[in-house]
């Protein structure tokens, strides 16, 4: 395996751009930086850096998983890609159009073509609306005629397997299970016939037995309609099932990106390795062994560290280098990029 692995030293910006497939990307995020203002006490404010120079592309019909722990910036990046958050620096391009600084009132077309599915199907659906009204609402905003609205609502319900559609259309969300509610959330996104959907932890609040159905449904939508997905998750195992490529985020940066198989079978960043080691798969031998863990927890606030964001927890860190010099993404095999000064050692050790 390692024979084909080759380290290059091209600048991060160029190599990140090279991850796209031959066709033009649908979404292109370049050098994104996001800083949140927070209150610190009554009069003072502080800054929390959420994203630090992140670049990512999503091709047409591609699913990219953003994997990371809370505070890694994965949800923020998803919202930047929808221009729900304007970045402090960097460029957001949707289907060739630069939307970085476009005024909100000019983004009506984007609000139709790009959708989001939220994590919590219990709080993201208005309990006083029937399912029909929930799904119809965006079409009213779009000015779609009544008869066409009805057909599209039923088609969307059928697309998410809530059949017979008229029966589910008349229900209220509280009458449905978590899995069914999440289907309503997906139907609401689908009804505008989007090109791009951000799915932000769409299965983390659903019972285990319903998760696969929802992921399979998203997969079907992707293949049948050619929709591009940004799948935001903390569960790297589900990313393997659902995504073409995986980007691993830590503290506001992408530390590793590649095909799902590359990242899971040949993880090269110490954080990716730790993330994979930490996952308990059902195996009765697990209880007889201690897991190799990285110590500590990600820092929760303040400015970005000067060097590698993972320095404070990294088992392989090189003091004097990693804490001073921020490692850039390097291509170690075609399409597989890692931001780590140790990457050549790790490639060698496989």
């Amino acid at each position: 395996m390692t024979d084909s692995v080759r380290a290059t030293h091209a600048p991060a910006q160029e190599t990140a751009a090279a991850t796209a497939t031959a066709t033009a990307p649908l979404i292109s995020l370049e050098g994104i930086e996001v800083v949140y203002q927070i209150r610190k006490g009554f009069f003072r404010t502080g800054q929390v850096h959420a994203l630090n120079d992140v670049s990512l592309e999503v091709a047409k019909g591609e699913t990219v998983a953003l994997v990371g722990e809370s505070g890694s910036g994965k949800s923020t990046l998803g919202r930047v890609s929808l221009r729900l958050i304007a970045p402090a620096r960097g460029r957001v391009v949707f289907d060739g159009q630069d939307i970085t600084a476009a005024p909100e009132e000019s983004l009506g077309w984007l609000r139709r073509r790009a959708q989001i599915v939220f994590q919590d199907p219990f709080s993201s659906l208005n309990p006083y609306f029937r399912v029909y009204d929930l799904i119809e609402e965006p079409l009213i905003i779009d000015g779609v005629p009544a008869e066409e609205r009805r057909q599209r609502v039923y088609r969307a319900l059928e697309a998410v397997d809530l059949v017979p559609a008229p029966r589910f259309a008349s229900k209220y969300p509280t009458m449905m299970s978590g899995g069914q509610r999440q289907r309503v959330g997906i139907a609401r996104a689908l009804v505008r016939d989007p090109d791009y959907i951000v799915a932000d932890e769409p299965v983390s609040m659903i019972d285990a037995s319903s998760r696969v159905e929802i992921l399979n449904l998203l997969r079907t939508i992707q293949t049948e309609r050619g929709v591009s997905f940004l799948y935001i998750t903390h569960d790297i195992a589900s990313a393997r099932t659902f995504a073409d490529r995986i980007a691993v985020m830590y503290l506001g940066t992408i530390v590793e990106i590649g095909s799902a198989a590359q990242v899971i079978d040949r993880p090269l960043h110490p954080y990716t390795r730790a993330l994979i080691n930490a996952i308990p798969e059902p195996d009765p031998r697990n209880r007889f062994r201690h897991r190799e863990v990285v110590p500590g927890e990600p820092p929760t606030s303040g400015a970005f560290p000067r060097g590698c964001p993972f320095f404070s927890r990294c088992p392989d860190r090189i003091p004097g280098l990693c804490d001073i010099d921020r490692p850039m993404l390097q291509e170690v095999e075609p399409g597989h990029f890692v931001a780590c000064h140790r990457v050549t050692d790790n490639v060698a050790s496989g």
Partner: protein
Amino acid sequence: MPVAKRDSAARSVLYSDGMTAPAPLLAVEDLHLHYVSGGRVVRAVDGVSFTIERRGEAVGIVGESGSGKTSLAVALMRLLPKNVVRFDGSIRLEGQDIRALSEDEFRREIRWRRIAMVFQGAMNVLNPVLKIGDQIAEPLQLDGRLSKQAIRSRVNELLVRVGLSPEFATRYPHELSGGQKQRVVLAMALVLDPDVLILDEPTSALDVSVQAQIMNLLKDLKQDPGISMIFITHDIGLASDLCDHIAVAYAGWHAEYGPAERVLLEPRHPYARLLLASLPRLRATTPPQPMPGEPPDLTNPPAGCRFHPRCPYRFAPCDTDVPPPIPIGDGGHARCWLNDPGVAGDLYLAHLKEPAGVSHD
């Protein structure tokens, strides 16, 4: 193996040949806990049995929301809400039926002293204006038996035991990270030196890398001081990280119960089997399989086997006859007619023989 702290010979069962064997540490048999809610009876725990043989063993209760796993914990701690309409069965702690104790006796002798619990989300309800050390020490101060000096050293000992330095005693909760708070909550549950610790989703609010740290700590506590655990989780993979026995809860029942090896590798209940097959795996050779149907309504569970409407293997008796816990022969049981040769005939163990779930590399 850790040394028993109490004289367990005092509470032992007399065998027919006159020999005595120590009673199991905890034996739960045919436990029921029903509530009434909106005029309807919720059968949250409906005939549940399991055993913790000895100190340092852990049993996992795995189930989806509404399967009755937290209600089981509530029953064991006897923290019953007012709307309970049925609470029976036996809960034997080293042979003594603690379910039969009066509330006063239970509070004085059992709750927190012998069976303690870490509640789901407990790390988020630490008192924000009390120092960590004072929060851990509170039960000891109320107890009044230890001197101030002794309490302080006990708090320090507990902090070290859960992987924190004694300096944490003087900190406030907001100064701690999520993983550190969860360690504090564990120290609080251990303060009266319980034999059995119930853990309800103790890592669900934590990131996976921190979860792994906490699971390592729980493994240590099983070994030394030999705490027995009841580990409640929706994640069967996480249960395999700690538990010697696993019960798979479904609609108030334990659909399947037995040694971790059997339940994970050769599940005898279709629900356990399908649950394992539905998990996305890191290195799977086959894609995860969706589970058909929706979980049942506990106020109106299906007749016969509660899983039968979702079960691809159902046959004649399943929609009418309630399957009892059918013994497997390894101390475990499965509530599925396929395990009874008298009922299943040619179907006996059909569909259940091939190992499901774990692929050994």
